[in-house]
């Protein structure tokens, strides 16, 4: 008997059918991956199961019994736990306090912290989820915070665990650890629903893969019966090129030259500690690294958002070390920011207003401070057309587009400006396969046009498929440089985590492979 079964669940939002007669079965000790693009209805479905939304039609059965789940409290009582993409932890509280929150042991409103700690330690031990029960959440890395969320669900007695895009925020190493945890949970008798849009993950972890598209289940396969290409086709509904073949680089003149650059972080730490490299026209140079090793500060210094401590940056021979963001744009630096919601778009602006952002003072969009709506509208219409932005019109607010289309707006603006240098920081983060393919093609298009591209990415797949050269950044320094053909994910991962340097012992869980070791 399945532990969880959905029968023809339908959920309609104004104007959108989020779930259209979706049926799903989860057996005991099974890992089902729910695969689909952003907006395919995966999260809606699981929010229904977890009681955050109510279905308009259909049935939910737990252990064969029909149930009505009206709140997450009820879901928890039925043994269903969910770890959301955005963690719901109280940062200033400790791990134990967070885990027992809502179900504190003790009586008369007095929490028995000793019992709580013991219980947390016991669960932690049993499932091999090691984490310091007294650490504050704010002090923990993202991977550990996620572990706390899982522990919390287990503490609440979950037998079915729903993980919503659990790997979106993790490093490759953390992803591997998570997969190990998920398998041990299943060994202990749990059943897991794993929501994702990443193909290689479902191949690695799932027992069964349920593919959703536009609110419906479009296929169900076992990993052994398919491959990534087949899954992508099922998910997107057409053929998708996962790895793009590219011409050899036609390296032109040096466009970007960075010398001994040092940049401080907001906390006054040496985030970038003496970095030198060049990017030439027609070349894509990728900076690979685990998040928080100085990439953000490097990019901010490069595009004029942060002033470097020392060193120099020059673009085609012009010194732009201390250029403002405005003059940086004007000399030909385009920037796809890593946080498109915060830095890339003004979400309450419409698409035309967003597409002109940064060029809004320049002819033909404005003369002497007066803007020309007609020119701006014409440009916006053209960009929407050229970059295949799916929208009814340029008057639509950016906030109402899907993530993929929002990123297309940013890409259209930054590339449409025809820059000398494109700085693309995590340009495909959180996007689905179709949108990733689009962004990758655009970046390669810049390369073919003889432009210089600096790509900053946490996704090794992306780095390897796009870059001509790969620079590995660790603790503010470039610790290794590869020609792309000579790099592979394992070796990159090794250097990204401090391998090859003084921290070899700490990185022991990643074994070095390939010829680059010891260099």
């Amino acid at each position, binding site marked *: 008997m399945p532990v969880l079964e959905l029968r023809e669940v339908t959920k309609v939002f104004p104007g959108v059918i989020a779930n259209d007669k979706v049926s799903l079965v989860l057996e005991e000790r099974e890992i089902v991956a729910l695969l689909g693009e952003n907006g395919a209805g995966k999260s809606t479905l699981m929010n229904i199961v977890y009681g955050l*939304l109510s279905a308009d039609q259909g049935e939910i059965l737990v252990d064969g019994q029909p149930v009505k789940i009206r709140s997450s409290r009820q879901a928890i009582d039925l043994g269903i736990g969910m770890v959301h*993409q955005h963690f719901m932890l109280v940062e200033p509280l400790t791990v134990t306090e967070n885990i027992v929150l809502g179900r504190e042991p003790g009586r008369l409103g007095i929490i028995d912290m000793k019992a709580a700690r013991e219980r947390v330690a016991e669960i932690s031990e049993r499932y091999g989820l090691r984490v310091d029960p007294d650490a504050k959440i704010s002090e923990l890395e993202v991977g550990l915070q996620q572990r706390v969320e899982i522990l919390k669900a287990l503490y609440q007695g979950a037998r079915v665990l729903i993980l919503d895009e659990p790997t979106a925020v993790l490093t490759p190493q953390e992803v591997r650890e998570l997969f190990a945890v998920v398998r041990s949970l299943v060994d202990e008798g749990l059943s897991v629903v794993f929501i994702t849009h990443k193909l290689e993950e479902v191949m690695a972890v799932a027992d069964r893969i349920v593919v959703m598209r536009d609110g419906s289940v479009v296929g169900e396969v076992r990993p052994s019966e398919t491959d990534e290409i087949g899954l992508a086709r099922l998910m997107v509904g057409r053929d998708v090129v996962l790895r793009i073949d590219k011409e050899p680089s036609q390296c032109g003149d040096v466009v970007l030259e960075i010398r001994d650059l040092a940049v401080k972080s907001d906390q006054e730490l040496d985030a970038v500690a003496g970095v030198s490299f060049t990017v030439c026209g027609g070349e894509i140079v990728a900076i690979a690294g685990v998040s928080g090793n100085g990439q953000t500060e490097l990019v901010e210094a490069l595009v004029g958002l942060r002033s470097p401590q020392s060193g120099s940056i020059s673009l085609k021979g012009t010194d732009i070390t201390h250029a403002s963001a*405005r003059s940086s744009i004007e000399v030909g630096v385009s920037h796809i920011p890593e946080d498109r919601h915060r830095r*890339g778009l003004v979400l309450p602006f419409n698409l035309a207003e967003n597409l002109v952002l940064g060029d809004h003072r320049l002819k033909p969009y404005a003369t002497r*401070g007066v803007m020309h709506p007609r020119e701006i509208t014409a440009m916006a219409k053209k960009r929407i057309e050229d970059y295949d932005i799916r929208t009814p019109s340029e008057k639509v607010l950016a906030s109402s587009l899907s993530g993929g289309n929002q990123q297309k707006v940013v890409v259209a603006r930054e590339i449409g400006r025809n820059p000398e240098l494109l700085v693309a920081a995590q340009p495909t983060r959180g996007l689905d396969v179709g949108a990733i393919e689009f962004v990758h093609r655009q970046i390669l298009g810049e390369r073919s046009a003889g432009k210089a591209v600096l790509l900053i990415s946490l996704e090794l797949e992306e780095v390897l498929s796009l870059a001509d050269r790969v620079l590995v950044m660790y603790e503010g320094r470039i610790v290794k440089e590869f020609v792309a053909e000579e790099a592979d994910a394992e070796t990159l991962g090794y250097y990204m985590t401090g391998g090859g340097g003084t921290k070899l012992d700490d990185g022991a869980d990643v074994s070095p492979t390939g010829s680059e070791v010891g260099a």
Partner: protein
Amino acid sequence: MSGSRDVVPARAWMSVVQKVGTPIMSTVLAIGVGSLIIWISGYDPVEAFAALFKGAFGGPRQIGETILRSTPLILAGLAVGYGFRAGLFNIGAEGQLMMGGLLAAWLGVELAGLTPLITIPTLLLVGALAGAAWAFVPAILKARIGAHEVITTMMFSHIARYVVSWLTAGPLKAPGQIPQTVNLSANAQIPRIQSLFSATTLEALPFFGLGRAHLGVFIAIIAAVGVWLVLRYTTLGYENRAVGLSPWAAETAGISVQWTTVKALCISGALAGLAGAVEVMGLHHRIFDQFSAGVGFTGIAVALLAKNHPIGIIAAALLFGALSAGSGTMQLEAGVSQKIILIIQALVIFFVAAEGIVNWFIRKRQKEATSGAE
């Protein structure tokens, strides 16, 4: 692609209804609750509002009174609204308004001999500049060290109040018992609307006998249209809105958040200063202690009700002006205290704010629902 499924036209249509609908709903609700309060207090709400309406629109003189009271509210509302559009809460518009009025009252007396064609524009300009100057220090403090404008403009408001208090009782005091300045000569006064018509015309067309209403209302309307054009069609307004909605995205696009902040607060101050100058030149013709009568603060309510839209601000100011103009008649004829008007004003703002809370919940719910993984 999933993006095409985000159905938008319905939303765009809804947003228009929302824009006009909720302020109207808020006003209706506020009057409803106000009626309830009047009823509980033992009076007849129908009688009360009938008297109020009569006092505000019952005849040319009453309409004139409504226009008179709306005039500074339009300008003060624009001042606060323009700041809000840059994400700034200029709570000290009252102080900038006082400084505008003060400078107009002082310089107006000094320029007694000149033609009105020079004096009036000069005084308006000086009033605006005085308001901008009074906002400049808080603006610089905000841009440079991040000092919150709510605190600094408020404190500057207090300084302005006591400066006016001291000057009207001391150095600028007119002869006599009352602490006030010398009256402006006619060349520095903004003429009443009815003064444009001859006595015979007024007899034939009594509609133009608009009582104390003065031409300043046209200055206010021109200012509203001007602000609307600036926000919509200039890079200044575009950058102002971008900074107000997302300072990070604005910064990334090469817009200086600090400089935009300074400009926005100074323009806001200039509009408040203009309100003060118009009020002095059109109505009081002099200044005295607390001549501003809280217009700067009511301007906050006006801006909130109008959701910072310049044209909406004209409508919201008319509403508040009418409430204020009619309240006297209401007290006289229905026996209901004038203070009920303050309660209704507060209720209007309460419901406008409550709508924000409701919307926030709706958005949050929708976000949870539709976020596939965005």
